[in-house]
């Protein structure tokens, strides 16, 4: 682990926090609310070279580009760890995504539980992404005032704690009780920005949303794709070849279901020509029962980032609220 890159929440000069590489523990912004972006970009970069290819004298060669750099993530919010756990299911589902797995296997996650709703936009209680993790981490830290309760969540985590046993003292029943208390407090600290996930799932799963509503929502979605890019669970990508002479590099780039080109077919036919239809697909994929069965959970961890990145008014909380109401306004 000594050669690992360490990534932690770091505060910029503008006062905003994002996950960033650090060289000194003092750079860590322990008191942060939520980072601008999730961990996704460290595992599924926006532009990712997959393999080099060449074709010389009729002979084709492919050389995968695997990122095996060890990385330790410190101070990760539970919603982002939940997002990562979701990505794990996607990367394993149909075939092994070796590019993703390579990064994932070489990573170590130290989560930081939220003792209260981190930001106004947070709704992880509705997305089951936090505020405390029950699984899917290597280590979870819970701030108990002057010290952290350290919870071990994986064999990797256990090995690390054993290796550095001198840094830890055993927790007692009082600490565990204190954690339970903090967890309950955290769960009731969420404000008004709730996402009505259950209502939306029911209506979406059983075809009970009106097309007129999606059409209206389509007027307020500016099609930037920001919600998909910022979302810890969105994984759609497109591929693009960068040619250089007889060969080149194949890259995958983030793609977003808000774009018209996303479903446009070679014939020119586009099954989702209108923005509202694209939005309907987006939320169907996020919340429908059939995808919950497939992925093991809703594709929303409640980080709330779509709420601050959306230039229109169509982030998860607003859309689920309008589905529940059955009307936009």
């Amino acid at each position, binding site marked *: 682990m000594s050669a690992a890159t360490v990534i932690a929440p770091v505060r910029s000069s*503008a*006062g*905003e926090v994002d996950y960033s590489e650090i060289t000194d523990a003092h750079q860590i912004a322990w008191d942060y609310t939520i980072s*601008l972006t999730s961990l996704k970009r460290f595992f599924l970069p*926006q*532009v990712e070279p997959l393999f080099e290819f060449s074709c010389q004298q009729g002979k084709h060669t492919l050389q995968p580009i695997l990122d095996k750099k060890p990385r330790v993530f410190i101070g990760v919010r539970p919603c982002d760890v939940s997002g990562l756990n979701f990505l794990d299911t996607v990367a394993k589902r149909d075939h092994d995504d070796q590019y993703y797995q390579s990064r994932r296997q070489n990573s170590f996650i130290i989560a930081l539980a939220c003792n209260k709703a981190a930001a106004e936009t947070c709704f992880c209680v509705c997305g089951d992404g936090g505020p405390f993790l029950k699984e899917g981490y290597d280590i979870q830290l819970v701030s108990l005032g002057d010290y952290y309760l350290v919870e071990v969540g994986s064999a990797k985590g256990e090995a690390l704690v054993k290796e550095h046993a001198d840094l830890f003292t055993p927790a007692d029943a009082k600490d565990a009780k204190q954690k339970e208390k903090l967890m309950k407090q955290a769960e009731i600290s969420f404000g008004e920005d709730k996402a009505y996930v259950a209502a939306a799932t029911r209506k979406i799963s059983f075809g009970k949303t009106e097309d007129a509503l999606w059409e209206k929502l389509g*007027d*307020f979605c*500016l*099609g*930037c*794709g*920001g919600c998909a*890019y910022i979302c810890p669970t969105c994984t759609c990508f*497109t591929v*693009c070849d*960068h*040619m250089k002479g007889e060969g080149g590099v194949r*890259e995958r*780039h*983030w*793609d977003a279901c808000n*774009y*018209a*080109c996303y479903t*446009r077919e070679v014939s*020119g036919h*586009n099954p989702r020509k209108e923005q509202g239809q694209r939005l309907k697909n987006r939320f169907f994929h996020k919340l429908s029962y059939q995808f919950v069965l497939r992925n093991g959970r809703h594709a929303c961890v409640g980080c709330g980032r779509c709420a*601050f*990145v*959306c*230039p*229109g*008014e169509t982030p998860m909380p607003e859309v689920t609220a309008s589905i529940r109401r059955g009307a936009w306004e």
Partner: protein
Amino acid sequence: LAHPVAQGRLCVRGWHAHELATSHIRLLSPLVRKNGQLVAVKYPEAIEFAAAGLREAKKQRGSQALAVLGSPNATNEANFALMRFARQVLGTNNLDFSGRLDWLPSATVNPSTPIENIDKADLIFLFDTDSGDDHPAVTARLIRARRRGAKLINIGTRQHRLARIAGLNIQILPGTLPEFIAGLIAALLTMTPSIGYLEGITKPPADYTPEKAARACGAKVEEIRQAAKAFQEAHRPLALLGRGAIRDAQATVMLSAAGTLFALGQALGQEPFGAKPGNSLMPLGSRGNSRGAREMGLDPTLLSGYQPITDEAARKRFESAWGAALPQEKGLNLWDMAGKVRALYVMADAPASCLSDPKKIDELLAGVEFLVVQDSINSALAERADVVLPGAALGEEEGTFTNLEGRVQLLRKALPPPAQVHANWEIVNQIARALGVDFGYESSAGIMQQIAALTPLYGSITYEKLEKGFGELLPAELLPSVAPAVSWQELDNEAAKSDADYPLLLAVDYAASYWEGDKVVLSCPTLRNEFTIQIKDFPQGFVALNPEDARNLNVRPMSKIKIIGKNGEFIISAQISKEVPAGVVLLPFWERAKATPVLQAMRNNADGLPCIEVEQVRIEGA
């Protein structure tokens, strides 16, 4: 999130602009034409070659045959260095750039108001803008203003997103915005007879009634009255001027009419956003730095900060700072350059994009004997060049941009440029040095010092200040006056007389799919997918028709149709769109070349910018 303009949000272009740096069409090596072929050379050789070609052209053809084009995608510093290069080194005022498309005629300075005023306004007029498509950051504010309870009134032809979300939507015929505003003023005056004589304000003629305006612009008189009532009741109204409004053939009339409206509002006790009516008008330019580029003096008649080259005192300041005499006579604009220019230096520009007839660029290039292209990405223009100088892409050089509200912002260098690529201002600097002139520029910060020293409008700008926050707003009070005198007599009283042989109106739509096929967009793989859909759907081009008209004319979606005007005809594909009103045919601006036979009176204003009138046409199957 802290950024006062973006507030943590990006548009689709913003999410992908970083792809430029690694674009597959990136120019990575200097190229020089040898025996008709462009071949890779080392950077110093390319600089020498460019300098030699320009030196020779100046000697053989004279300064008047040389011209320079800057760019709305380049920094203020690079554009300023280029402006200096043209005037001091080449000795010409033949200076222009494509971003002037975002500008009103040169007699006028675009009005200016901070974007955050959208948050403070209680009534917002949307004059012929499709900002949902081309200004998502502004639209984000509009959507929030709407939720806050501000009233949005959309006035335009195409029924796009804003028409659907506005509180009041008034559909007008293309090119009738000045008539609409005049009608609004007339209605306001009848509601508030107390407004008497106002210093400096010319009201529309007394016989210009809302009814006349309604007939001329195809709106209902009741709608005009509703808009006037909303304006009368508003405390802090604001107006956004879209590309359609700015490029309208009567844009100056529109501007002075809007200015008159806001001056009347002030007289009614409204709380204005500034002393001048222009402080309540926000023109929505399209390019990252089209405002900055113009304010750096990429203009045949203006030095930086709108200082006329003929202003002796201003010119003397530049001459003494640079130690050289500058040419005084009016230079050529891009449109007028064709046939007169023999050597051309283009920095990161797409000149064809702003011409009323993009083929005009071929005429210009046919007469050009020596072409220098400096750019970060390849283009058809670069392929015709005699020298290609690869310049830094976004994020590879430091410099400032001035956004549409006049906020000067520092772009930091995020990554080093590739080996043979240099900062754009540096390349200009090197060619100047090779031609025997040392600009003495060491850094972009140093150039900004000179800009500030020579340009009152930028007088307070320093990198030190810019590094601290999110840019500095230029002092609006230093902008020259906005509204020229109103010429109300140009108003139409009636809609264009209907003609049984030519029952439809063909109009250019400046807003529709503006980014389609744009060269910067095409260089980013994801954007290329998104912004070539219409090119793929309609490889022969298209006009948009109302579904009812299409049904009556038996026109099927994507079928070929013949558009017949009084001057000629052309064949194009049909897009059927319910956003288009009945009786109107909309031609996207980027398809204009295909329509030259009908719009052959492709008129330009005095600045050589498109000024295309509506034409009466009929449609037949092709």
